């Protein structure tokens, strides 16, 4: 663990060195994240100007949910998002050769390699929003204590599903389609589960459980009788982690590398 932490620390400092070499791009990424935050919050506020409830939730509840998801999104952008795009390039160009040669878990070497420092600048905004709407929905002290763990749980489930999807690039080679699919999946997960109905909802809660990422923890925070959802989320995380290890090792065996 110490070894992994020391390498991760280097990943972070190396990524910061790379990212800050291009100042304009660095600032544009901060602005882009900011626009994304503002447009999401503004669109929900606009809808609530015309209705008092969406599904079972009032405005502050939905905005708390959105803040929770935006916080996960912020962590995802910071820790993983760049690596998904790089993985696709590395597979195509054969640069992956060097990465999988390193004496560490290949999943770690591939998906934790690029840290996006620009997202760190927006973290206070996302965190502030989560605290603000948490206060608005009157969370109890124990609920506040649970939030960090639930955020990590949500982020873990999201990335494990994304890792599995990305593993398919070993067979497909071109990763653009998969990366856009991943982004659309995140887009679906950004809304509470009750807005989806029928088969789609069932699929997105079980086979591809992306709706659990935000809905399970937030529903549990609002009403602890929703614990089965949270238990289901933890079960999904375990099952999908096992599946990830299996498909990843198959993917590595399938890897042909690009010729030089």
């Amino acid at each position, binding site marked *: 663990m110490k*070894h992994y932490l*020391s*390498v991760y*620390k*280097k*990943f972070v*400092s*190396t990524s910061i*060195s*790379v990212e800050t*070499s*291009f100042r304009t791009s660095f600032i544009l990424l901060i602005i882009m994240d900011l626009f994304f935050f503002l447009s999401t919050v503004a669109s929900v506020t606009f809808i609530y100007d015309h209705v008092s409830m969406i599904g079972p939730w009032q405005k502050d509840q939905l905005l708390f949910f959105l803040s929770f998801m935006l916080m996960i999104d912020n962590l995802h952008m910071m820790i993983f998002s760049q690596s998904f795009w790089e993985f696709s390039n590395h597979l195509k160009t*054969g*640069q992956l*050769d*060097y990465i*999988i*040669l*390193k*004496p*560490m878990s*290949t999943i770690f070497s591939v998906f934790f390699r690029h840290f996006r420092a620009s997202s760190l600048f927006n973290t206070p905004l996302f965190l502030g929003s989560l605290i603000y709407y948490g206060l608005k929905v009157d969370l109890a002290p124990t609920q506040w204590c649970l939030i960090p763990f639930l955020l990590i749980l949500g982020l873990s489930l999201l990335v494990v599903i994304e890792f599995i999807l990305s593993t398919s690039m070993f067979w497909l080679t071109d990763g653009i389609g998969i990366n856009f699919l991943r982004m659309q999946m995140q887009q679906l997960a950004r809304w509470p589960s009750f807005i989806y109905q029928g088969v789609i909802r069932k699929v997105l809660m079980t086979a591809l459980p992306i709706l659990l990422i935000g809905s399970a923890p937030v529903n549990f925070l609002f009403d602890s009788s929703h614990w089965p959802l949270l238990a289901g989320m933890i079960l999904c995380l375990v099952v999908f982690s096992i599946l990830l290890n299996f498909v990843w090792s198959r993917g*590595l*065996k399938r*890897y*042909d*590398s690009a*010729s*030089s």
Partner: protein
Amino acid sequence: MQAPIISVKNLNKHFISYKKSPGVMGSFTSFFKRNPITKEAVKDFSFDVQKGEIIGLLGPNGAGKTTLMKMFTGIIVPSSGELKILGTNPWERDKNFRKKIALVMGQKSQLWWDIPAMDSFLLLQKYYEVSDSDFNERIEKMSKLLGVKDLLHIHVRKLSLGERMKMELMASLLHNPEVIFLDEPTIGLDLVAQDNIREFIKDYHRKNQCAIIITSHYMQDVQALCDRLILIFDGKKGYDGTLDDFENILGNEKVVSFTFNEPQLNDYQILNAYKPQWSEDKTQVELRVCEEDLRSLSSTIIKNYPVTEFATDKMPIERVMKELMNNPELLKSQLV
């Protein structure tokens, strides 16, 4: 005799790709119906390497050299056959195994492009858990030997190809590997840079006694570094032996060149048996002469023609290689 550090038995690797006709129609057709093509990249390859050996793996483009290197390092998995490096199956990707090997690819970089090489070295230090004292000592030594001490803090993208390759070598050797795979480490470099890198590898090997497998298109690399040569043609091993034996593979012929004081316009029947190669201005001829005929032929020519210079040399390894590439059947008698 010690157990081999690398043991390869009947190794095979095939790749499947798809045939695509050109143009839009071809794209649509291949979108719905693919015609798979199986390419046998490595066929029934066997050899052993002992500790401290330097082996040159030579062959034309597409012969399977890089595929072999990738199998040795565990990057790709063999289709069949046995492969043990340091007693381990490379494709199992054991972490201890990965700490003991290094790969340098002349056409790919492991350094981060947008930061100085030193930052990449520091990351590698953490990857391989190299102590600070060892790290500093190795960086100091290698950068001095390679003459890149002043370049360690320059962004990699600003370095020349030769400088970058020196940094790549340093990056690969920081963890003091037991087996080193060098895939065309001098490709595209000027003569001075090639020479620097060869000297560095030679020196490194002398001090560390590690096993090295090197692929290259440059015969000078092989001549300068290797004790043993393995030739690969179309995925198959063509020759495995010493460099001296390889040079004699076409027989005990020498290359003899004669320079004349004026263009020789007559057709010399006497030379025709020795595959003469005339210079454009007809003032120089190069002959391939077997050792037994060397004395008599040379004295005849010197006596009867206006010779100003005369030189004899072993058959250049490049020429042997070229001849074998054009006529791989010549190797049939050498197949191991």
